[in-house]
């Protein structure tokens, strides 16, 4: 892989890793290059973004490099953000709601583990909209709050009960595994 290709691949990699970003060590590992070469690649890419009128750039925080938007267009971002949140649930809020609905009762930490992203504000928003509520506390250190869905949630999605939620793939696959186990044990039974 030549340098130009590495730059393009690094751009792609920074895109996928999003807010997590990349450490120089991870870049060394991926391209099999030295630390110095990794830093050099990052600097070249940052220069490319800064020399052209681009909307994104690379930020180095706490030793990790991440792709971020430039501050100058913040009003544009605010405008779309406000609009998305006006008449409907944002995809992010819907995602949190879906995780709570299917995995309830669930703690904030568990929601964040699935999403891989801080979800504090979204949980507060859903609470304020009374789509979710506190349903108890977990009996572990810190006694974290457990969340579940509300009757308003059922109303909003026109459900008479939680059983009406569409089935999850993992349940179907579990069923199949159990069937397979049963089938195998039957076969064994036959032989003996």
């Amino acid at each position, binding site marked *: 892989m030549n340098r130009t290709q590495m730059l393009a691949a690094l751009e*792609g990699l920074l*895109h*996928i*890793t*999003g*807010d*997590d970003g990349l450490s120089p*060590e*991870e870049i060394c*590992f991926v391209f099999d290059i030295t630390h110095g070469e990794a830093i050099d690649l990052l600097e070249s890419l940052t220069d490319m973004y800064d020399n052209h009128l681009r909307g994104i750039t690379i930020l180095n925080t706490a030793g990790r490099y991440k792709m971020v*938007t430039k501050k100058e267009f913040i009003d544009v*971002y*605010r405008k779309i*953000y*406000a609009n998305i*949140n*006006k*008449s*409907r*649930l944002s*995809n*992010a809020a*819907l*995602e949190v*709601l*879906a*995780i709570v*609905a*299917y995995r309830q009762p669930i703690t904030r930490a568990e929601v964040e583990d*699935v*999403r*891989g*992203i*801080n979800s504090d*504000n*979204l949980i*507060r*928003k859903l609470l*304020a*909209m009374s789509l979710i509520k506190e349903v108890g506390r977990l009996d572990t250190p810190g006694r974290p709050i457990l969340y579940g869905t509300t009757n308003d949630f059922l109303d*909003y*999605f*026109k*459900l008479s009960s939680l059983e*009406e*939620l*569409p089935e*999850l*793939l*993992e349940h179907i696959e579990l069923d199949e595994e159990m069937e397979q186990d049963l089938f195998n044990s039957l076969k064994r039974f036959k032989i003996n």
Partner: protein
Amino acid sequence: MEYQVKIDEFEGPLDLLLYLIKEMKISIDKINVSEITQQYIDFIHAMEQLNLEIASEYLVMAAYLTFIKSKMMLPKSNIDDEEIDYEENPEEKLKMRLKIYKLFKDVVPYFKNQEEERSYLLTKIPTDLSNEFKLEVNEILTQKMNVYDLLSAFNKAMKRYHLHRPLKTKIQQQTITIDERIIQLRNTIKEKKNMLFKDLFKDNDSKEYIVVTFMAILELAREKIIYVKQDELFKDIYVDYIEERVEIHE
């Protein structure tokens, strides 16, 4: 006749029929029901002899083919009345079914290809802006959503969860292989000549690192590069470097 394929490689009786037709190198329009019926039944028998499970639909089709075959052998005048309209030619009906099924079967490679192409294009989690901009609480949700939107959101989160999961562990595992750890340990122990066993584990407490280190120690001991000793049960274990013996050449 020996069969190169097994029944579980087919998606159903129609798929099996299409296979047999292809093997006979004829088009659907040219099939001879009597011949194809024989081939089909022979195949089913062969599979039964292999004790393979045969879905009931395959047997229903066998019966149906036999029915068409027998019907075709009857003189035409024996079939009468209004039902003729679509009952009159079950052979044509079968050909139609095969053609329709083939339409969809033939488009499967297209979907397969699209699925693959899409899987190469990766994207990122939407940036969380709720800290930057104040998150307003919607008073009324005007846009209707249904449970499928909810399911779709859940699936998206799970997909991402499975995709991103191995990120950290994988890099950790890859950072140190047993061979690399052997070299590291040999150099460290050689330098210090004598070390506490437990000190070899202290720079990293990940499970992978401990396992890799332990394996490396075993390997070094096996190759007689180090010597592991313990004076008494439950006492500290020491690791000694074995000085290279001077090879005496004859």
